[in-house]
């Protein structure tokens, strides 16, 4: 494997995680991000199932990219994605029925998730199978992390605790779900019900986007200042170079 190919593989894997995060940077796939993030477990489940669908569709579309005529691209992609969604839906119903009932319609709605179709159109139909595979994993991880961030905030603020075992039953201890009390105790309860409601979902997502925009703006400002400083220094140097005889001598004489 030569250096350029390795760099490209690395790039297709890493890009989707932070730099081009599908939810927070590209603002795609917002419907499930707001709907299934009431609990951390549901968000993780959604992220994992999403990653499977994206991986499958990316690899298959990339493998078939020379066979699918350009005119019927989108319908062909939709059918491929729908097939993987059906597979994932049936597996989920059979093995994790609690997750299936929690996600409900949103599992079927993965078919029209903009990220899956977006990656197919923007990446998988132009790149090799291995790169598309890495791109699928990278974007899947990025989306899952984004869902986890929203769900953590919403579950902790909304219920005052984290619950494990309601959906992934293997996490149960002695047949009971595990509760991790954070904002709640035997006599006190600082949880805010609003964050568990749909309105709370919009607020949390909006504030996260605002924080990210604030950081991006700050970085942009800093870069602009640096660029201006560099341009100024270059102009000064050019001025000095244009009149070398007068500039360096003048201040020396004044000091004595």
């Amino acid at each position, binding site marked *: 494997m030569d250096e350029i190919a390795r760099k490209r593989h690395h790039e297709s894997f890493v890009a989707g995680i932070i730099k081009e995060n599908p939810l927070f940077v590209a*603002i*795609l*796939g*917002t*419907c*499930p991000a*707001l*709907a299934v993030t009431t609990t951390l477990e549901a968000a993780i489940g959604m992220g994992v199932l999403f990653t499977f669908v994206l991986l499958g569709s990316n690899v298959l579309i990339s493998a078939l990219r020379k066979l699918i005529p350009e005119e019927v691209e989108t*319908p062909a992609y*939709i*059918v491929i994605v*729908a*097939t993987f*969604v*059906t597979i994932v*839906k*049936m597996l989920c119903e059979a093995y994790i029925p609690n997750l299936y009932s929690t996600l*409900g*319609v949103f599992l*079927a*709605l993965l*078919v*029209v998730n*903009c990220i899956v*179709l977006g990656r197919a159109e923007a990446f998988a139909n132009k790149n090799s199978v291995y790169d598309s595979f890495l791109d699928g994993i990278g974007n899947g991880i990025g989306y899952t992390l984004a869902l986890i961030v929203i769900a953590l905030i919403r579950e902790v603020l909304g219920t005052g605790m984290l619950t494990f075992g309601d959906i992934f039953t293997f996490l149960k201890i002695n047949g009971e779900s595990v509760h991790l009390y954070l904002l709640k105790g035997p006599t006190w309860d600082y949880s805010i019900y*609003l964050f568990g*409601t*749909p*309105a*709370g*979902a*919009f*607020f949390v*997502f*909006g*504030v996260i*986007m*605002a*924080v990210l*925009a*604030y950081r991006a*703006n700050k970085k942009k400002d800093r870069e602009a200042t640096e660029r201006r400083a560099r341009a100024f220094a270059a102009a000064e140097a050019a001025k000095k170079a244009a009149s070398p005889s007068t500039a360096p001598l003048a201040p020396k004489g004044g000091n004595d």
Partner: protein
Amino acid sequence: MYAYFVSFLLSIVTYLLIDNVVLTRFYGICSFVGVGNKVKSAFSMGLAVVFVIVFATLICFPIYYYVLVPAGLPFMDTVVYILVIACLVQVVGFFIKKYSPALYKSLGIYLPLITTNCAVLGVVTENSNSGFDFGISMANALGTSIGYLLMIVIFACIRMRLDSYSAPRAMKGVPLALITAGLMAMALMGLTGLGV
């Protein structure tokens, strides 16, 4: 008959306001935030969604109960629905173009986008998952789609007004739109309990 009619009307109200498609069930957020602050295009988009959701329900209901269930293939619903919706969007486009070129012009680019609008697939899937009969399915379709039209137009009006006020730089655009949507959702929460 009378009782059924009342439950039909109540279902429409439920899906229109209490269980609102965008603000409570989160279908179609992408288009909701994406259409932005143009009231006219928001109205066109909403109208196109009403067309497609009502027709998709009309077609998918018999397909599910008279083709997929007797054939023992109810698990194929997602694949069939998305194909029906994609074809339907094309056909609706042709019809509107033939009979009302003015409407076609105003719907314009929004028609093809409806295929990937979660609201359409969401309503159709919900109808078959919850085992609604034909009347309640249609009530769900009407209530949801009109609720979508209503919210997207109100939202565009609010955003048009917001644009002329100065907001902190980081809040401009999508963050402010999301907070606005959150406030609208809080207003709708006041109607909880009214439903059936």
